[in-house]
């Protein structure tokens, strides 16, 4: 890399311009990664935090809206619970409602109905758990919106009044709204659109959304269990897709990211194509002097690697700086190391592929052209 380093230093402006483009792509990549992680967090963090391995929904339920459409009953919980390999199973209800606290502060909630002694019962980090039919345990995120312990939240339509008794540890959201845990019968009333003291319609008493399952069963065993229990199982991660907007949001962002990777490869390819064509005379001279193809390829690729490492590194640093600021705003944004490192590695790898396609041209430079005519 004797020559590569000296060329980088010599043609600072040219390489700097190329580097700047890659820096901008890397910044954009970090911001997109942060946005997509933020959306994931807003969309499904409440599910991610659950001690659940899979959900058993109503048989043949539409998968992308399972949480709002599915209905199962108490017998199904028992069927699942009694299966070998299933550690625990419990009722799980989910309903999206709007409400406001006593000061008129609006709160949108994903009301989760659970049995207070089951394995999916909320574990508050602050305050207390489910004390009675009116108590609700909220995602800590709701505290940021001005809700406090002791507040009374009145739900629209049913006028059910819920008292905040505790907060969970950190953000627990579903479909961009905070989760609020209530006792199962309370959930059943809310879901049916009735006040708490009204009797549930015939047959609605024992119903909820899904069976929350904690098991060591593999996909095949789960399918067999499904067959026998008359349910449709989704693993915890599969169930993310049933969060409103989740699939659309994440796939759009993924598409933009894929485009950025392609742009990175193309930009690197175009730059090194022009550079290699420009360097043709000196490459012919070096080949005539006996530089091997391997030497010239190592030198050219080494140069591309240094340029990519430096620009992607700088871009990620700037992106994380900007992202750190965004993270403190209300925007769904989360800097997560894993995806950022992956994006950086992919940018470098794809940039290198683009550069390599251009740099292999040096193998076609004929050393014979070094002789003769003055050029």
């Amino acid at each position, binding site marked *: 890399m004797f020559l590569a380093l000296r060329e980088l230093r*010599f043609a600072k402006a040219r390489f700097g311009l190329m580097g700047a483009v890659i820096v901008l792509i890397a910044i954009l990549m970090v911001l997109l990664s942060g946005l997509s992680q933020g959306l994931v967090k807003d969309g499904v963090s409440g599910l991610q935090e659950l001690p659940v391995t899979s959900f058993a929904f109503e048989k043949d339920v539409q998968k992308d809206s399972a949480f709002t459409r599915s209905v199962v009953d108490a017998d199904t919980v028992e069927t699942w619970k009694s299966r070998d390999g299933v550690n625990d199973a419990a009722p799980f209800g989910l309903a999206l409602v709007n409400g406001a606290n006593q000061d008129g502060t609006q709160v949108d909630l994903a009301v989760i109905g659970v049995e207070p002694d089951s394995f999916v019962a909320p574990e508050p980090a602050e305050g207390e758990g489910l004390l009675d039919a009116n108590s609700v345990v909220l995602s800590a995120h709701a505290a940021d919106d001005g809700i406090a312990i002791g507040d009374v939240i009145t739900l629209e339509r049913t006028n059910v009044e819920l008292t905040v008794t505790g907060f969970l540890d950190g953000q627990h959201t579903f479909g961009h709204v905070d989760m609020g845990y209530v006792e199962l019968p309370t959930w059943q009333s809310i879901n049916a659109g009735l006040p708490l003291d009204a009797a549930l319609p015939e047959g609605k008493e024992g119903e909820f959304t899904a069976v929350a399952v904690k098991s060591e069963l593999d996909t095949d065993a789960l399918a067999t269990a499904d067959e026998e229990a008359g349910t449709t199982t989704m693993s915890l991660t599969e169930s993310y897709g049933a969060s409103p907007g989740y699939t659309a949001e994440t796939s759009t962002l993924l598409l933009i990211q894929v485009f950025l990777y392609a742009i990175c490869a193309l930009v690197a390819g175009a730059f090194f194509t022009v550079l290699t064509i420009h360097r043709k005379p000196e490459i012919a001279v070096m080949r005539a002097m006996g530089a091997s193809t391997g030497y010239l390829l190592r030198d050219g690729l080494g140069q591309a690697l240094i340029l990519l490492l430096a620009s992607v590194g700088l871009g990620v640093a700037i992106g994380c700086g900007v992202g750190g600021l965004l993270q403190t705003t209300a925007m769904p944004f989360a800097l997560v190391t894993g995806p950022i490192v992956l994006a950086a590695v992919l940018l470098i790898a794809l940039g290198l592929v683009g550069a390599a396609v251009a740099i292999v041209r040096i193998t076609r430079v004929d050393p014979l052209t070094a002789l003769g005519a003055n050029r």
Partner: protein
Amino acid sequence: MTGLQITDVSLVLGDGDESVTALDHVNLSVAPGEFVAVVGPSGSGKSSLLAVAGGLSTPTSGSVTVDGHELVGPNNRELSRLRRELIGFVFQSSNLVPALTAVDQLRLPTTFGKFDDARDPMELLEQVQMAHKAKRRPHQLSGGERQRVGIARALMTRPRVLLVDEPTAALDRARSQEVVELLAKETREQGVATVMVTHDHDVIKHADTVYVMTDGRLEKQD
């Protein structure tokens, strides 16, 4: 066999009706320390001779050896190694690498492989009277200075054969004389077999032997 031996070499370029006999049964022997000049009209085959002598073109027939190593037959990889280890090229003026300073131009060929007995670049620059401009890049040097650096670069790895292609094409008369004198001096001091191709009849007086190329045939000038 030391030095350069070209034995009964023919080179036919192009094919069919278009084919040109660039070299026609050429014989040339250059001993270590001998300075040979080749003159001839344009298109007579001078560059072709250098290309064949340096393993850049494979002759249609005949044999080329450098220090006993045959250049006709080996694959490109092997030819590349032989060029790196045994042959030095001096090209026309503009063939230095733009990004490198004079002293780095000299270091460059030593990075192509392992050279235990490579010359000291500063010492060699001193010898071609370019040490005071060691940190300059090609665009900051005159044509004659560039050519001196080019000659020094070709000598860095102690080649056995030095092939020089029209070294004075871009220089004025005084500069041409200096450059060719330098080539003659280095040839003798280093004991290298040198072939210089030129259009310039003024500089051939520095050569030990002069050959004339006409239509691919090489003849010794008296």
